[in-house]
């Protein structure tokens, strides 16, 4: 099953094969988790929201539109919506989150300092990016940070590819302007 492509796994998951959904989780949880961290600057929150994204993806599974048989762009689209409606999403799935076993022995003591550094660093970046309109932030995060193609970002956001290009272009220009005004290099590669 590990060799099956996303589309096949998704079809099997929707047909009730829970193992197929588990394989999709293993395959994409890391990317979703890192995307959520880069949007929130909080590893613990990103971890909880990763669960929320997959629960929400299951709830909306009949809406799935796969780009080149890839589930990840769609999952990152769900993640973007979860971030936008964070309170609502967490409310909807609060009972499920409360049922998650909390094993603090699994906490990441070894790289705790590294993760705290990450969070501090990411907060600085988000402060700069936060000056952009939300839509431009979404496109920048998907294309520059999650490394989606324009077409995949378009699927994630449910907008035409041209809209992705123009938002990305405007966002980058704005970042360059803001960064140069502050004497810095841009947080997003031009």
């Amino acid at each position, binding site marked *: 099953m590990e060799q099956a492509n996303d589309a096949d796994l998704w079809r099997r998951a929707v047909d009730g094969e829970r193992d197929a959904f588990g394989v999709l989780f293993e395959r994409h949880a890391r990317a979703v988790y890192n995307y959520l961290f880069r949007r929130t600057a909080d590893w613990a929150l990103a971890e909880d929201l990763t669960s929320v994204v997959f629960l929400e993806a299951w709830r909306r599974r009949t809406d799935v539109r796969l780009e080149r048989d890839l589930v990840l762009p769609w999952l990152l689209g769900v993640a973007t919506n979860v971030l936008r409606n964070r309170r609502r999403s967490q409310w909807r799935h609060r*009972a499920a989150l409360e049922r998650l076993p909390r094993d603090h022995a699994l906490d990441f003591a070894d790289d705790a300092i590294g993760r705290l550094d990450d969070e501090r660093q990411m907060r600085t970046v988000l402060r700069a990016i936060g000056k952009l309109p939300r839509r431009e932030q979404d496109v920048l995060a998907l294309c520059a940070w999650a490394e989606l193609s324009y077409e995949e970002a378009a699927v994630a956001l449910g907008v035409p590819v041209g809209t992705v290009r123009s938002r990305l272009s405007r966002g980058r220009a704005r970042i360059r302007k803001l960064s140069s005004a502050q004497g*810095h290099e841009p947080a997003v590669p031009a």
Partner: protein
Amino acid sequence: MNDENRIPAHRDLPPGRLQLRKEHVVREVTTWDRASRQRRRRLALVLVPAVLAALAVTGFTTYALTREPTHLESVGCFETAELDGNIAIVNADGRDPTAICAELWRRGDVGPGAAPESLAACVLETGAVGVFPSSNEDTCEELGLVDLPPTYATEAERFAALRDAIAEELGASYGSSERDPKCLREEEARALVRRELAARGYEDWSIEVIGGGFTEGPCAAVGLGFDGEQEVVFLVPEPDE
């Protein structure tokens, strides 16, 4: 890029957590599906809110000649062309009642037999709408009832729009539509409902709070019920999960 704006590198989930999260998510969706199947079956049989079920059932068990349907909130799908037969009561949704019951028949929720080839919608004594298996055009008359008047479609659509608007305002799930619950204070909930009633020409309707009331906290998620005969909207504060 300067160091200040460097993006932190990707990391794995903490050790053991990927497996833990995976098992949790898979377990949750499996449970949902099971619960959803059970809920669909249960709701198909009596889709009106539990607190109103007794009222609704009473509405479908007696008969006499009534011209106008007044219970626009629900439809009774009768298993046989008899007034004392089994009934599946469901929320009306603005569609033709025969279409609603045909869908229930197809899902096997009205009775074990094959779906009837045709159905007839009649007005019961209480003003409720009953849909019966039909073998000719006189089914309602043969049961001592009258056919659904042509005005029903407009009134049913208007009522469904009111119900949906109120449910949207309150964040209340109703029938098969699910919404995000809002936590509302009683006066807020009443004001929202009152505004929708007034805006849609239902000024005469009253609002009643039933169930446990808004007693457990400053606000509550609110369930909904309707009684078209008495012209009442019921607010049912729901305890938090």
